[in-house]
Structures are given as C-alpha cells and as structure tokens.
C-alpha cells in the first residue's frame, strides 16, 4: 500500500520551476531515499509533503490524507527533521524533547523505547542548552524530537549534509533501526552513494525524477560499459584521457577514473594503448559495475546535451 503518492506535482518560484511534473510513490513502511544536488527540488518536495507549502498543481496523498485540505490531521502523523537545525537553542536538551512530546499530547516516557538508541548518546548532556551542542549531537536531538510522538511517517531533509563520513554511516544505521517500528521513512541526501541502504530511491535533478527504483535496479538499467582506470596521477591521466577519441564521459572517482565510450566499437585496448603513447604507464584498467553516481552523471550529461 502506498503511504505517499504523488502525481504530476508542479511548483514554481517566479520563473524557476522547482518541481516539474513530479511523480513518486512511497510504500507503507518503506525506506525511501531522495538523491540529488542542491537545487534539485528535494526541500520543496518535502515541504509540500509535510503541508508547509502548497503546490501549484498536481495531486498528492500522504498517509491517506490531502496535505492541503487535511493538514491538521496530517501533521499529527508526521515527524519532520528540517535541513536546518530548528529546535529551541535556549531550551535544554531535555526541555526540547519534553516540549515536542507535549505538543503532540504524549510524554517522553511513553515513547522512550523509540528514541532510546539515539537519545542515550546525548542523555548525559540533557541539561545542556540545545544551542551549545556539537553538530552531531544536535542532529541526534533533532531526530529524537521528530520521533518522540511516534509518527507514522518520518521525513528527513538532508540529515547528513556537512556531517563527516563516519557519523553519516552511523546515522543511516540508526534510520534503518527506526524502520523496525513500522515507520515509513523518506530521507534526502546530496551524497550519491550513501542512500543505497534505502530500499527505494529516486534521483532528482532540476525538479524532475530522473530515475527511480531499488538501487540495484537503477544501476543495472545503466547498460554502458564503465572502465575503471587506477593510477597514481589522477590529474594528468584525466587530462590525457579527455583527448581519447570516442569517449562519452571521463570522470575521476577517488583514486580511479571512470571512462565510458559513446559506442561499443571501443575497448580496453584503446585506453591502454593511448595511455602508453602519452607515457602514463601505471594505469590498471578494468570493467566495473556502475554506481549511483555514474548513473547520475550520465543523466546530467544527457539532459544538458539535448
């Protein structure tokens, strides 16, 4: 059953189309990731789903309700963690949590089991003002406050942006645990590869859903061969490979370069001979499975060339 259903959603700010005929379905108890860079429309979409913005056109249903008409009922079902820290900085950790529980007519005690794994990290600092917490602690408090009324749907807007790689991973693991309570989760991120933990994802770019499905489906739909070239000199090798004929894209991916040809007539030999000719001798070439970021880059290139 669908918990969030969106059809042909449009929203513009002046001449800028923030959402352009967007369609999306999130199943009940789904763990759904929205992946896209800044400006893709992620925040606008979440604000419409949470009834904070009214769409220009299109239809949507969230938890069986219409966010425009039934916003009061809907808000009781939602937990929302906005992208910017939005708790009361001059209330203590515990006061913030108690406030959010109180607003929704519940108590910390009643739903403590839901937040226990997250909240216990910051409980030793429960008398500290929220504004004085470190970034990672603020994030845990915000998540606790969004969960304390046992929402049916949890919506998180870029909870891991600006967070270091290790804390990011821990945060995704926490979300995965929250799922066990039957809560539907919709989460957005600009980090392409981290949302593969979700069971369904959509890639968002310029207000449109570019691709959607399970992470595996998305990467297996990507049919072109991706050559990975490992070398110790990324900048020089990258510059050299850009002059190879027949390439569709060549991009750095950490210590590797990913290269895609525009057609199947080219092969590994073309790359290795070309690199030898230009004195790049340490390259190790292999064919790899595409990742989410490969798919995303491919889409951006296609959409900007047209």
């Amino acid at each position, binding site marked *: 059953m669908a918990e969030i259903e969106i059809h042909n959603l449009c929203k513009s700010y002046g001449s800028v189309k923030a959402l352009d005929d967007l369609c999306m379905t999130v199943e009940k108890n789904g763990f759904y990731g929205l992946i*896209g*860079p*800044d*400006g*893709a429309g992620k925040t606008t979409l979440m604000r419409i789903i949470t009834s904070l913005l009214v769409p220009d056109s299109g239809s949507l249903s969230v938890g069986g309700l219409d966010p425009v008409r039934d916003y009061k009922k809907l808000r009781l079902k939602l937990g929302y963690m906005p992208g910017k820290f939005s708790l009361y900085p001059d209330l203590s950790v515990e006061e913030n949590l108690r406030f959010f529980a109180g607003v929704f007519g519940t108590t910390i005690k009643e739903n403590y089991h839901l937040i226990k794994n997250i909240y216990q990290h910051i409980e030793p600092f429960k008398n500290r003002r929220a504004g004085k917490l*470190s*970034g*990672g602690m603020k994030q845990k408090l915000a998540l606790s406050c969004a969960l304390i009324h046992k929402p049916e749907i949890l919506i998180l807007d*870029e909870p891991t*942006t*600006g*967070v*270091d*790689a*290790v*804390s*990011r*991973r821990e945060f995704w693991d926490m979300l995965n645990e929250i799922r066990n309570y039957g809560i539907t989760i919709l989460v957005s991120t*600009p*980090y*392409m590869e981290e949302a593969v933990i979700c069971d369904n994802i959509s890639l968002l*770019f310029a207000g449109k859903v570019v691709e959607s499905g399970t992470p595996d489906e998305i990467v297996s739909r990507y049919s072109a061969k991706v050559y990975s070239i490992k070398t*110790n000199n*990324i*900048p020089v090798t990258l510059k050299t490979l850009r002059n190879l004929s027949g390439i569709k894209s060549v*991009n*750095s*991916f*950490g*210590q590797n370069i990913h290269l895609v040809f525009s057609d199947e007539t080219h092969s590994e030999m073309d790359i290795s001979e070309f690199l030898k000719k230009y004195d790049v001798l340490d390259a190790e070439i292999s064919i790899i499975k595409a990742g989410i*970021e490969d798919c*995303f*880059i491919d889409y*951006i*290139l296609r959409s900007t060339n047209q």
Partner: protein
Amino acid sequence: MITDENIIVVENLVKKFGNFTANDNLSFEVKRSEIFGFLGANGAGKTTAIKILCGLSFPTSGKVSVAGFDVYKKRNEIRKNIGYMSQGFSLYEDLTVKENIEFYAGIYGLRRSEIKDRFEDLVQKLGIEELKNKLVSDLPLGWKQKIAFSVAIFHKPQIVFLDEPTSGVDPITRRQFWDLIYEAVESGITVFITTHYLDEAEYCNRVCIMAEGRIDAIGTPDELKKKYYSLNMDEVFVKIARGN
C-alpha cells in the same frame, strides 16, 4: 609542481576556549603549490585551526607562520596573501558577477586596469559571457561555487583556503571544481581544503586527519592507505575515527 618550500608552518599550536582544548599541540607544514586536505570528524578542531591560519583568531600558544608571516604580528599581511572560500560565505547575492569581482578586487587594492584585464581572462576561461552581468542570486548553483572560487583567487594569493567548497554540489560541477583547483595549483597557488567527500581526499597531495583536537594521521593518500591497510581513503578515515 610541489616545491620544498614551506608556505605554512605550524609548531605546537594550542588553542583553548576556557577549559576546552580545540587544538591540542598541532605541528605540520604545507609546501608551496601543494593540495593539502584537512579532514576530520565534526568538532575535531578543523575550523578553529583554519581561523588561526587565516589570521582571524589568535593561538593560545605555539608558532604559526603563513606565507612567511607570523600570525601574532602580521595578520594584515597574511590576509593580503590568502584567499578564502566556503559554502556558507562566498558571493553577494544582490550584486552581479562583475560587481562581486570588482568589489573583492578593489578590497585587495588591485588597479582598475588590472581588474579589467583579469576579469576578461576569467570570462573567457569560464565561458561566462552571458552570466557576467547577471545577479548572483539568479545563477545556477553550480556556477556560484565555481565563480566564488575564481573570486577567492582573483588577487592571486599565495594560498587559498577552501572550507567544504563542494558540499551539496552536483557530481559534474564537483569535478569541474577540481579542474579549477588543479589549474590554480599549476599557477603556483597552494590549496588548503576541507571536505566530507572522501573521494576528494584522494585528489590531495597530502592529507591530515584530525580527531579530538589532535592530528591522528598525516601523509600522502598512498602512505595512509598502506599504513592503515586500507583500499581507499574512506576506509582510512573510518579506521582512524573508530580508533583502530
């Protein structure tokens, strides 16, 4: 080319806020024309150190020199010789691209003819003929970051500090941004960069990983991968952060 000349020298840098030690006895050097990656978990003390290096905050103790100038005595000279860009602070949204550049270049005391010539070169290089008279607020996001970087190095500083410059940027622009970094380095500028994208750590000549106010590891990406038996910098980072 990286030289042997030290452009940043930090010896036993300590910075305390009350009882809290944000930088606990840091020592490192950065070479001229190097890309130096400054990584670490949130709250590890990166921002504190960068503020000191940029002459915005005094150390509690220790010796720090940037571009040959002492951070205690020569803060104005340091500021003239560095550029700075972050995701949060970059360009004035209600000025055009051209006005932003004229403003920054004016602050750095560039002559009008110099500004004009360099601006024309920049427009050519970035291909922004159509964008140059637009308000920054009307620019696509990817362009804002690329132009902000160009503004930060417009006065040809010796060092540019980049604080999470690619955060949230789309994957193509992120790579174009690195092309600009490589170009800056070729022209002799030293790049001091923080990032949460660990693929970008691989593009640095050397990487320094901070944890709890101290330097936990420093070296080339290859050295660190060998030392921590890791396949990539992501693994190195995880191993260091988890303390093994």
